[in-house]
Every structure is written in structure tokens, then in C-alpha cells.
């Protein structure tokens, strides 16, 4: 499946760019206003995660389909230090540096599907999907 956009992430500006790309794609796919906002927020969170912990990485956006629905897939990839305890990182209220602890679990709650593959020293790949309501 081809990506519709690849955004390299390395600064606050890149975060904004990723949000913008995600918002545009989501609007094109026909997501509602609140859903678009949620997608933008989720992208914001994983992009900020890259900037804060790995310094650099990429975010890829793609349209996807299953049998009867269209959707949006977001993949965030970095070669940073990785997350030692993924389960702990996904717990509500956990945050390595931000006060609110929205971060990765926040992104998960805003999306329909969320998968994270990480470990100490092996970087992090986060894959998230949101499906259009039929």
C-alpha cells in the first residue's frame, strides 16, 4: 500500500506540517470535523514523541481500505532509544516529561486502532488507523 505523504520529523515546524498533511488527507477522505481534529491531535502527539525522545523520524500517511470501509493509516517511525517498558508507557497518566501525560495513550484513545513496536535500543514504530463511519 502506497503512502500518500511522508513527512520527516525533526522540529516543532515538522509537527505542524504533519498535522496539516493529516488534516488535509482526513478531510479529503470525508472524516467529520471532530474526527479530523482527533486525527490531527493524534498525529501531534506521536510527532511530538519523536521530537522529544528520538530527535528525528518520519510520519507516513496513507488511505486504506478493508472490505467495506475506507480509512486513514498513520505510521510513525524513529531510530531513537526506544521505549523500555511499552506497557508502562501506554498507561494513562504516564509521561516521561510532559505534565499532562496525554502522549502515546492519548493518541491511542483518539484512533480506532493503535499498535506500537518498540524496545530498548531498537527504535519505535507506531501504527494507527481510523476508519470512516459507514
Amino acid at each position, binding site marked *: 500500500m502506497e503512502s500518500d505523504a511522508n513527512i520527516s520529523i525533526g522540529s516543532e515546524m515538522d509537527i505542524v506540517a504533519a498535522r496539516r498533511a493529516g488534516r488535509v488527507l482526513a478531510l479529503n477522505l470525508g472524516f467529520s470535523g471532530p474526527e479530523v481534529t482527533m486525527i490531527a491531535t493524534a498525529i*501531534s502527539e506521536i510527532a511530538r514523541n519523536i521530537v522529544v525522545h528520538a530527535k528525528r523520524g518520519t510520519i507516513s500517511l496513507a488511505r486504506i481500505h478493508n472490505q467495506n470501509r475506507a480509512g486513514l493509516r498513520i505510521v510513525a517511525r524513529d531510530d531513537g532509544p526506544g521505549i523500555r517498558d511499552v506497557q508502562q508507557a501506554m498507561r494513562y497518566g504516564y509521561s516521561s516529561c510532559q505534565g499532562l501525560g496525554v502522549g502515546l495513550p492519548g493518541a491511542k484513545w483518539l484512533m480506532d486502532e493503535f499498535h506500537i513496536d518498540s524496545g530498548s535500543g531498537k527504535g519505535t514504530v507506531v501504527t494507527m488507523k481510523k476508519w470512516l463511519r459507514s
Partner: protein
Amino acid sequence: MVAVLNQETLVTAVTTMSRNFSNLAGRYLRTLRKFATTKREADLEQAYALGRKAMSLKFGVLDMARIHQAALASLLAKPTDGKREKLLEAAEVFFLEALSPFEVTHRGFNEANRRLQRLIAEKEKRNHDLAVINDRLTAEIRRRKLTEKALRQSEQHYRRLFDDARAMEEGLRDLSNKVLDVQEDERKRISRELHDETGQALTAISVTLASLGRNEQISGIGQQRLHEAQDLLRSTMETIHNFARELRPAMLDELGLLPALRSYLAAFAERTGLHIRFRANPLAEALTANAKIVLYRVAQESLTNVAKHAQAQRVDFRIRKVNSRISMMISDDGKSYRELPPEVLKQEHRLGLLGMQERVRLVNGQIAIRPRVGKGTTINVLVPLNGAVERRENNLAALG
């Protein structure tokens, strides 16, 4: 004082809160105005950041609605050059963005809540399981307590029975002790009676008969009758003498155990034709009077049994000192009672054995009857030499 302080603290908090609120509202208005004209994504992210800031300052969704409403009213108050529609559109996107941190938190709470419900359900199930186990344990404890109580009661019951039996045995022993004492006294009295009164009378008759025999006026036939009477008298005197000795040898009281036994054995051997070998340690005379009588009676009973049933040739009779006790050992070479036909082994015989055992026990002695097939019987009696009371206590202690 405290109330005043609290009041002040509250006032300070409220003041801080409203200052934060105005700051936030101002920033919100400025950013929204900018976004409405530029439509830049960066300003939308600012909206998101403002939402987070509001949350961190403990403001709620309703506060955000007020801030948004005020900002929108302020923007709409100025002429919009027909861009009113676009302004409203931008305001909606901006508002959603500002509210999205609340949405995230709300969803997070929902998930935490679901997890909590699951945990509570699990806990309740576990509580239920524990309660079931607890009930079972309680029932088990109750059952065990009942069993324990029953055991204790039955133990007490048996202890009472045991104590009763022991008291009864004690009483019986006292009684048989008394019976034996009385029996000995009675025998002694009858024996003395026979010896002193009857014996003297018979002696007097004998003297009279002898003087009659010297009377020449008594004819031949009279003399013959006289001789017959004298013979009868002599054998009667002997019978009575034996009987008196059997009952209670005066010798036992006057000369001691060993002379009495020796004399008895000699008479017994003569009467039965048994060969009796007698060896004795003179220390046996140091025994108590009761112990001596017991040994004498056991010797009598044993020899009577040997003569009655054993068809023995020889009897070996030995009295020794063994540590602080005197041992009397009687061995015969006849048939042991195990070889006797059951009809011979009658109650009388059993009673004799039982009587011996009882007598020995009363002086804190021990008796062992060892029948050996083909080799006769050995009876061994052990009686304490001194300190009968002390030994009795030792025996009791040893019995536990």
C-alpha cells in the same frame, strides 16, 4: 484566626483563578483572530496547546465554552466584510482543536473506568470465592471442634471408668488383704486350739489309757480293746498334729521360716515318698512376718500341686538372696500343668494359682510360674527383703 486565614487563602485562590482565566481568554482571542485570517496549522496547534494549558490550570469544558463564546462574540462585534461565514468555520475548527485535550482525557477516563470495572468484577468474584472457602473452613472448624469435644468427653468418660476400676481394684486388694489376715489369724487360733486344748486332752487320755493298761484287773479282752483304743488315739493325735501344723505351724512363729519349712518338707517327703532337696540362705529370716507366711503358703500350695498332679520324683527347693530380695525357687521333674488334661486343671487348681499370686502381690513380691513341657514346672517367688513400703512405691512409679 484559622477561619480568617482560610478566608484569605480562598480569596487568593479565587483571585489567581480569575487572573488565569482572563489571561487564557486573552490568548485564546488573539490566537483565534490570527487563525481566522491566516488559517495556519501552527495556530491550530496553538489552540490545542491552549486546551492543554486550560486543563493544567484545572479549567473544564464549560470554561472553554465560555472563553470561546466570548472570543467569538468579540470577533463578530467588529465589521467582518462579509467574511462572517469563514470566521464561523475557522472558529469551529479552532474550538474543536482547543477541546481535543479534554476529549483525550475523557476517553482516557473511560478506558480507566472500564479497566476498573473489570478489576472490581474480578475482585468481587474473588471475594465470593473467598467467602465460599471461608464458609467451608468455618464448617470444617465447627466439625473439628465437635469431634474434639466428643473425644474429650469420651476421654473423660474412660478416665472416670479407669479411675473407678482402679479404686475398685484397690478396695478389692484391701479386702483380700484383710481376708488373708483374718484367715491367718483364724488358722493360728484353730491350730493353737487343736494343739493346746485338744492335744492336751488327748495326751491326758493317752496317759489315762496307759495307766489303765497297767491295771492287772483288766482281762485279756479288755487289754486288747485298750490297745486298739491307744492305737486309734495315737493316729488321731498324729492327724491332729499334722492338721495343726498344716493350718499354722507354731514353729514358723517360734523358730522361724527355715526350720518350719525344713520340718514341713521332711514330713511331706515321708508322707509322699518324694525326694526333696532343700537349700536355703539364712538371710531369709530377715523377711517380715507377712513375707515369711507368704513363702510358707506358696511352698505348701506348690508341693500340694506337685503331689496331686505332677507324678514327679524329685523336687528341688532353693532359697537365695538376689540383690535386695529373697528368691524362693521350687522345681519339680514331673508333668507341668500344661500337659494335664483339662478336666484335671479344674477351678480348684486355678484358684490355688490365683491365691498364690494374690498373696505374693500383697507383700510387693513377684511370682513366675514356668511350666516346661517334659521338664516339669519351676515356680519362682521374689519378695523384698526390707523397706516393703518403699518398694511398693517404686513399683507404682515404674508402672507409671
